[in-house]
């Protein structure tokens, strides 16, 4: 299967569409001629609003590329990507930057924070850049949710890795973006700190109605999601709803075995 378009376009989420982002026939290729490498091969995908989506796949499967393209960080070779009703493919850098600033949140694997700013300043940075005042109540709730109230004045270097990632989560949540993208957000954390961060992501979906897309290769991390998409060789090869760590692991083993025999 190369498509993950399974969700009705309009659902019960108020005025907004039920699909937060979608990709249509997206191709991403590097190089040309004999050296051409296809990272994404005519991918169709819908990201459901208010859900936690995990993208999995072996190294080189194109999972990070897909996320980068969805987030407007990378350009596509062909196809369209929509954020809500806005087509972002073909947007100029200025518009794209604004879009990232106002409508998208990011959590990277590491180096998420500016070392010169303290935790609170890092959290409000996207809004500061935009020249918007943060919603105080919301901010307090977010900070509370991620459990950082007593660490707000600390510089990143004074925080542990788990705390740093929680600040990053808070930053992504604080601006109330339409969608948050996480690039292996727990990849650098031990299992306890990782579980903490994933717990917060889950809660932000359940309690705050946030839409989250996360790239990971950790079955345990994927088990926090509502839906898991599997990528291999630039195509979507499978998906799974309400995953458990065991089920994900089994499916992964399956792919591995198939990969080895073919």
């Amino acid at each position, binding site marked *: 299967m190369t498509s993950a378009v399974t969700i009705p376009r309009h659902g019960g989420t108020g005025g907004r569409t039920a699909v937060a982002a979608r990709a249509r026939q997206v191709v991403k290729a590097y190089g040309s001629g004999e050296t051409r490498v296809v990272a994404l091969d005519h991918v169709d995908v819908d990201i459901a609003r208010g859900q936690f989506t995990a993208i999995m796949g072996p190294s080189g499967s194109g999972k990070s590329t897909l996320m980068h393209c969805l987030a407007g960080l990378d350009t596509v070779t062909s196809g369209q990507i929509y954020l809500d009703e806005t087509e972002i493919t073909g947007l100029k850098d200025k518009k794209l930057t604004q879009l990232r600033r106002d409508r998208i949140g990011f959590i990277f694997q590491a*180096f998420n924070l*500016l070392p010169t700013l303290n935790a609170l300043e890092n959290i409000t940075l996207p809004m500061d*850049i935009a020249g918007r005042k943060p919603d105080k109540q919301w901010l307090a709730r977010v900070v509370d949710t991620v459990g950082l109230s007593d660490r707000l004045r600390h510089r990143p270097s004074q925080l542990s890795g788990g705390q740093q990632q929680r600040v990053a989560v808070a930053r992504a949540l604080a601006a109330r973006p339409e969608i948050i993208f996480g690039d292996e957000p727990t990849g650098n954390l031990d299992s306890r700190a990782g579980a903490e961060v994933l717990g917060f992501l889950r809660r932000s979906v359940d309690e705050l109605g946030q839409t989250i897309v996360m790239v990971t290769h950790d079955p345990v991390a994927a088990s926090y999601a509502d839906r898991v998409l599997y990528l291999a060789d630039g195509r979507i090869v499978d998906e799974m709803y309400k995953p458990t760590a065991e089920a994900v692991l089994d499916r992964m083993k399956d792919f591995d075995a198939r990969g080895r025999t073919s």
Partner: protein
Amino acid sequence: MTVLKTSMRNFFAHKGRMALSAIAVLLSVAFVCGTLVFTDTMNTTFDKLFQATSSDVTVSAKGASDSGETTSDNGRPPVMPASVLAKVRAAQGVKSAEGTVFSTSVTVVDHKKDNLSPTSGGPTIVGSWNGNDARTMKITSGTAPKGPGQVMVDADTADKHHLKLGDDLGVISAVGTHHAKISGIADFQVTNPGAAIFYLDTKTAQQTLVGRTGVYTNVNVTAASGVSDPQLKQHVRAALGTGYKVQTAKETADANQKDVESFMNVMKYAMLGFAGIAFLVGIFLIINTFSMLVAQRTREIGLMRAIGSSRKQVNRSVLVEATLLGVLGSVLGVGAGVGLAVGLMKLMGKLGMHLSTTDLTVAWTTPVVGLLLGVVVTVLAAYLPARRAGKVSPMAALRDAGAPADAKAGRIRALIGIVLTGAGGYSLYLAANADKASGGSLWLGLGVVLSLIGFVVIGPLLVAGVVRVLGAVLLRMFGPVGRMAERNALRNPRRTGATGAALMIGLALVACLSVVGSSMVASATDQLDKTVGTDFIIQSDSGQLVTPQAVKAVKGTPGLARVDEYKTYEGDYTTPDGRTLKDTDITAADPAYATDLRTKTVAGNLKDAYLPNSMSVHEKFAKAHGIHLGSKIRIAFKDGATANLTVRAITSSDVVIDSGAKYTSIATLAKYVPADKMPLDQLVFATAKDGQQDAAYKSLKSALHDYPQYKVRDQTDYKQALKDQIGQLLNMIYGLLALAIIVAILGVVNTLALSVVERTREIGLMRAIGLSRRQLRRMIRMESVVIALFGALLGLGLGMGWGATAQKLLALEGLKVLEIPWPTLITVFLGSALVGLVAALIPAFRAGRMNVLNAIATE
């Protein structure tokens, strides 16, 4: 060997990051080499010129200087009777001899009365056309001058003033004005040192320059074959006796060369001094570059250490990189230096001195000095960062990049900085309160050096405070972008401090000199207002004396209440303490000069100094030689009789105008000095009748229309001229300091460029979460401006301190008024902000162009 290999690889891997450091080395080395090549070339050129223009043996009057200078106080060249020529011709070993007449105390004008003298300060020479000149000048059109109605002019002057055959010229000398038509134009066969030369026939030259025939200024003697110059000199001397100056070609050339060399040396050392400042500034740039490279490579170095490299090897590998940088920069610098010298020669050509590139002299020492300086300075500058690299622990390989701040080093630095700055401040305080200029200037020098080093050391600690203040004032309005710029500037205080310090050095000197310069102008203006009681000053800007004809023209001007003449002369003094002071100056003026310049007296009445056989001295002179009112000073006037003058006034030494003058009346001087030896006026003062100033000024100007070499100035003009003169000098110094400032700007660019590289990931992150390109560029520009303003603030503060101290010290020499040139200083401060913006252009552009994903993925 591996060390060298790693160093080479590192060097070439980071060649972009080394580029600005290499340019800094290049510029400084180029300036040094350019100066050396240029001055050597000038010396070669003049050497050739003097060799070519000197005859085998030259005989001149006793009063002539060794280098053949033919000016004297009475405006006429010192001459010998024609009989000398006959005696020389009869002497043994003489093949031929020719009498010539020359003078440099002349002005030549064209038919519109425009001055034809070189504007570059070269001499105007009028002389007789003779065989010696025919060797170095070639008549290119027309004929040699014959008879009183003809004059020949050099081709350069003819070109510059569009003179052609048949044009009417006026030769103005102390004798009068002689008119003649151009009969020929002669071109230089040797380098024209920037002079304007006019030839008359011998008789006309004698008449025009000396006022009578049968006299010569020089006799050029050619040796018979087989007679050496020293032998010929012996023979000529034997024939003439001791009353004349006899010099071989070599002696004449050497004497001339000595004059040129002493001038060239002043220029050489001044320029080398500025090159030294540029080097000093370059050191900061190199230190920063290597510190940043070492910091960026911490993990790599840690890995090297972990797999077994010794500290020494790591240390050495950085120093080897520095050596490579030094060699590269210096080699290019030596080449650029030669180019610079050629450029300067071309520039001299524009000023009227045509230097030939065939004379380009590159002594073997020049590249050696350039290379040594460049390499040694670079390696020295890299030493501290290299040591820090050696200290990197193997554990660094495992840690994330970024060196932890060293709190202890900060405290030691603070202590050293405070001690040095304190000592510097105290020295300056002592200098300001010194009661002797000589002792005070030592303290001033010490204070300047100590406070400069102190500021450099303490700079990184001041960064926090100063940048926050600047941030509060300037950056707040730029919101979060401004705040991030401020934080970035504060991030590595040592780096910001060193970058700012580089700019500080140049700007401190600019501030100091501008304070001293404007205080000079203000003090002189103040004293002019308080003491000058005359309306107009007439003088020549090229130091020529005022001819009697011009004085007559002034005296005949309507609307003037009085005209006072002012002359200086020399004599050997015998003072009451029994000492004899050779060749000491005396000022002779009309009695009313006491009103024209109301010099304060500490004893007696200055007017009495103009009584017959009376004089005044100044306080310091009186103290030094035990002189009181009524003391007698014996003066043996040069070329005159001996007088016993009574001291009737003692003037204050504390003046700017006429500082150190000893006055007597012209009438007194005339009693002891024969009329034909009386000096011409140096200055003429004219005072208008009440209420007729404007009319008198106009009349004076038209009266002196025939004498374009003299300028009439009223007090306003005079003040302006004074201001212009000092302004010109300051501009020249600022121009030379520009080199150091350019290197400092390169330093700012360098720091920003390397910071941008260092923060690639951060920039990627910020772009990912929505910082626009424009905001990113603005952030980098703001950081740059803050660094530049930090340097400017420190530099201007320091420089003002130095300048004010210098003024306090010079108050002892009459520099009474402290004037802070705020417009200049504010312009410099704002200019620094502009410099910051310009320096950020390329780093900001490159940061903006970074690919977001690649930037985030950077290790």
